[in-house]
């Protein structure tokens, strides 16, 4: 009972495509839980089943202890969904959308108007209040989508790829909103294709691919299982690359990749300390470096590493 979401063996089949293929999840209350996976992994399908929009074909899913298939109304009164695609009416204005939804949640007209105005102000949309949503920018649209989801502060908020396609500033605004929402006691189930997003926001992450959870844990434990990240080096003199390769390979104890750019090379690093030692080794040998960075493992690298390790779930 202490979990906000608990699924066991959840399955959804479209034709002969097992879009969700035996997913077990346990989402603790009051946290952000990240569902991380590439296009077509099954993230949206999981969320739609949890939000009572799709019937599971197998397994069970409980939201605050209520079975999504048997007690959909009990689930609906506690959750809010911000879908992957516009989840407000694009023909209506920001105010009209919020008033409409507030009325549907049972607010009387004056209360609905007041609530709408309050939310628009809190989300920095007051100026766009009387404009049709189809004329909003991508960032504004995401904000009105989320505002529409917290007209009544929900106990569980589903955010399906809330930052895909946003510029860095808008993405930061959405992150701030998510942090604030969680600070007020709402559990957030967030789907994303970006590891750094899950890393920054989520307490735990499930990595999902082809409908299966291939890894689960805290961001720290996931990253530890695949190394700290990738060292990217750019040399001043392409002639010294072979030398640099052998030095780095020796320090990091991993194979080094040669990029098509003759001055660049990359290598996975187990820790930041190791990466620093590699930089030291290059300096010690008098190899001039134009650029040296330790990047977060990309989602690609996470998948490569996870599938190579034989999927520790």
């Amino acid at each position: 009972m202490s979990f906000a979401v608990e699924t066991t063996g959840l399955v959804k089949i479209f034709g002969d495509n097992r879009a969700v293929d035996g997913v077990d999840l346990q989402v603790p209350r009051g946290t952000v839980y990240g569902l991380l996976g590439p296009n077509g992994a099954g993230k949206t399908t999981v969320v739609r089943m949890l939000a009572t929009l799709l019937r599971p074909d197998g397994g069970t899913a409980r939201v605050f202890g209520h079975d999504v298939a048997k007690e959909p109304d009990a689930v609906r009164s506690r959750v809010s969904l911000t879908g992957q695609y516009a989840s407000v009416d694009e023909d209506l204005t920001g105010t009209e959308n919020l008033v409409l939804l507030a009325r549907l949640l049972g607010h009387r007209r004056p209360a609905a108007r007041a609530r709408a105005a309050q939310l628009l102000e809190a989300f920095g949309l007051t100026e766009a209040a009387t404009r049709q949503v189809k004329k909003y920018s991508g960032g504004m649209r995401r904000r009105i989508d989320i505002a529409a989801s917290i007209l009544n502060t929900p106990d569980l908020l589903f955010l399906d790829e809330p930052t895909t396609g946003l510029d860095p500033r808008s993405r930061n605004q959405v992150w701030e909103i998510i942090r604030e929402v969680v600070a007020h006691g709402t559990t957030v189930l967030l789907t994303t294709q970006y590891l750094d997003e899950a890393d920054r926001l989520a307490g735990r992450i499930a990595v999902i691919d082809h409908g299966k959870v291939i890894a689960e844990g805290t961001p720290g434990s996931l990253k530890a299982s695949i190394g700290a990240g990738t060292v990217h080096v750019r040399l001043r003199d392409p002639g010294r690359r072979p030398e640099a390769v052998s030095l780095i390979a020796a320090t990091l104890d991993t194979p080094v990749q040669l990029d098509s750019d003759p001055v660049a090379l990359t290598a996975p690093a187990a820790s930041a300390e190791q990466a620093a030692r590699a930089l030291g080794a290059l300096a010690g040998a008098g190899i001039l470096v134009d650029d040296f960075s330790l990047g977060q493992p990309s989602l690609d690298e996470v998948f490569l590493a996870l599938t190579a390790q034989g999927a520790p779930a």
Partner: protein
Amino acid sequence: MTTLATVLTREERPRRPSALAASLTFGWRAILKIKHVPEQLFDVTAFPIIMTLMFTYLFGGALAGSTKEYLQYLLPGIMVTSVVMITMYTGVGLNTDIEKGVFDRFRTLPIWRPAALVGMIIGDVLRYVLAATTIMLVGLILGFRPAGGVVGVLAGIGLLVVFSFAFSWIWTMFGLLLRSEKSVMGVSMLVLFPLTFLSNVFVNPSTMPGWLQAFVKLNPITHLVAAVRFLMAGTPDAAETMWTLAASAVLLAVFGALTMRLYNRK
């Protein structure tokens, strides 16, 4: 200054709205959409005007000797035809609307399930009233003189709107069942043309071959047209009116139920 923290403070939640309140709220959404895209009213004004003018002058001389005389027979029928044809936009509208993400949100709200669809049709009913009124005005200008007076005309329009509301649920079903807007249009035409033309709208059925008369007699449009004619002529016919109301109830029960089944599955 309202901050996020203020809006996130948990307050007591209001009681969920009644079925009627939720449906009317969705009806308000439909009206807002008309306000933002008024072009959609073109269908319900221009189309009926053209229908009325076309058939009055096309058939008037040949069928009744004079257009004015024919109009007394034709107008209630052409009003029924136009409004019943307009009902198909309900299916087309639903088909395009439901593909958008906003319906996912509606379906996760803890409200009476059919409300979104009922509200949509409430909006369409306003369009039916507008179309019927337009035709009546054109008819009056052309010389239609209903003996039933204002009361008879209003009763006729009222009955037509009740029937059209029930009839619309056929289109919500197809709107949910079929994949594209185009196929909804196609099926609508396939159903509507025989239903409206193989009736007593344009000519008296006694001039038709027997097998056709049999179909015409079963066609609910025939009974609707007869009922509306009698109401507008000031000689209400209880049997035809009851027949129409019963047909409306059956349409609503059958296609409303089928629609909701599809809506819950989608």
